[in-house]
């Protein structure tokens, strides 16, 4: 009796989990399946094909957008990591009150609605006479990426003892050498996951890019948006699938890489 009751409960638990998973992933799964569908219909399966993928790779527009996306993601993540790490070190050595205030300020852009960030960046660029294009998208992405870098570097920095830095100084290292030889290896996992997080955020962004890109430059997300308005093509499913897969892989790496390092 007891056993069957327990079994029933177990079944409900699994059922609930499955429902949640379906809600979350069914739409994405549909898109992935359709990207391999040889029929243009959204309801009928016409057989497996890679045609939409070849079409996607043959399209000049898509390839340009892909190049822009990757370049902006890489550059903005790299620059954000340098600025963000330096900022974390400064914030970490502050007294508690200014530190809390500054952490609050750096957190605001993350909580802020993207549309507000996007519009205000656009207005600022126009007001200061900076023409919209590749450079403004890059600056915008660096701006919203810095808080994510700080967020992932800060905890690592808090774990490192200030005494190891002092010990390096004590043994004759200059402050710069002491940092790169002793502190940096300790916070490297945080810096790397900050980089991956920033890269993903940049890859993922649509709204802020949309407002700061100006005419003539597209990233994948803005390209998809403008294509969809003209009627959706299956090669867009393929493109979206590739973006989803890339983001998923990056997220997995950034989630698991630092933990592995810490466990060693």
């Amino acid at each position: 009796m007891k056993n069957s009751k327990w079994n029933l409960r177990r079944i409900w638990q699994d059922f609930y989990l499955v429902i949640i998973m379906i809600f979350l992933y069914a739409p994405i799964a549909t898109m992935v399946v359709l990207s391999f569908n040889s029929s243009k219909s959204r309801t009928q399966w016409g057989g497996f094909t890679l045609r939409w993928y070849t079409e996607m790779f043959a399209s000049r527009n898509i390839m340009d957008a892909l190049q822009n996306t990757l370049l902006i993601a890489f550059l903005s993540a790299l620059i954000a990591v340098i600025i963000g790490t330096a900022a974390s070190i400064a914030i970490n050595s502050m007294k508690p009150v200014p530190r809390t205030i500054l952490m609050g300020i750096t957190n605001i852009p993350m909580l802020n609605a993207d549309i507000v960030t996007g519009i205000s960046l656009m207005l600022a660029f126009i007001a200061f006479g900076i023409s919209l294009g590749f450079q403004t998208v890059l600056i915008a992405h660096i701006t919203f990426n810095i808080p994510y870098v700080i967020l992932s570097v800060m905890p690592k920095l808090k774990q490192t003892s200030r005494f190891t830095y002092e010990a390096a100084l004590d043994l004759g290292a200059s402050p710069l050498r002491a940092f790169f030889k002793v502190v940096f290896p300790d916070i490297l996992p945080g810096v790397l996951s900050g980089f991956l997080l920033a890269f993903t955020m940049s890859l993922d962004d649509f709204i802020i890019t949309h407002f700061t890109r100006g005419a003539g430059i597209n990233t994948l997300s803005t390209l998809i948006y403008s294509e969809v308005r003209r009627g959706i093509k299956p090669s867009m499913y393929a493109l979206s699938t590739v973006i989803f897969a890339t983001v998923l892989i990056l997220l997995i790496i950034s989630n698991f890489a630092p933990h592995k390092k810490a466990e060693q």
Partner: protein
Amino acid sequence: MGQSLIDLVNISKSFDGTMVLDDLNLSVKENTFVTLLGPSGCGKTTTLRIIGGFEKADTGKVIFDGTEINDLPPNKRQLNTVFQKYALFSHMNIAENIAFGLKIKGKSKAYINDKIKYALKLVNLDGYEKRTVDSLSGGQQQRIAIARAIVNEPRLLLLDEPLGALDLKLRQDMQYELIRLKNELGITFIYVTHDQEEALTMSDTIVVMNQGYIQQMGTPEQIYNEPENAFVADFIGESNIVPGVMLHDELVEIFGAKFACVDRGFGVNKPVDVVIRPEDIELVEPEQGTLTGTCTHLIFKGVHYEMEITTPDGFEWLVHSTTLCPVGKKVGLRVDPFNIQIMNKPASEDEEAVGVNE
């Protein structure tokens, strides 16, 4: 013993308006083992960090071998520090840790390898070159931290409570090892601790500090046997501190009883503080004692019994003795004249606050 290696002259330091060191003067001779001893917050670690160059004094001078080094950064000072939390570099192996300072100085590979071998032998960890930091126990990590410091052949080694995190047995072993290292290497040691036993065991000179002031400076024997004030007497070992009146030279009155002592020059009928160590009180038959009291508390401690003898005036005397006095029994207390230490009463309340409170 030669020239003084380091001099602190009129050093003051405050953090956020709290005075940590107040006009401190300290001179350390070459080739000595000096211990800064005091409760937490007494300024001993700050003193060490000022010598190491990690803190800047607000006023005063730090003089190293005759040269003022106030503005010299830590990496340019001819001294090394062993930190409380070891501060080993966890992403490097043991050999790389020890080689860190030597590599910066641009020493040859052969020289560095020789030095690593020598240092590991010195701290009894031969063959540990390739081990990782995490695979070592606390005591072993501590010894590596010491090895890492001494391969640089500093003239002065600063140690900030290096044995604080170790268990009792290991701590005692390390104490002997530090004494051996000091004798073998001829380096001057400045050692910070709050453990009075550690200080008494290892030091040539003990500097007792409290609330940013030096309370007393002297050999372990002087500090233990002739504490200059109630704080030192209380902090170093256990003691009975009782109010008394110095009737005249070599005679002091405590609770109405007259005790012969050896101190002179306190004046006539002068109120004083009297220090008597628990192990210096002899238990005798009631009629032979200078004071009589009743045993109110008894614990067996192994080497001796610890007893509390309450005299009629209500004072509880702490007594360490191999003579057993059961609870409730009347007993006489007797003290040899040379075991009575007389101290001036603090002149003002302010001075008392400095002296007695932690």
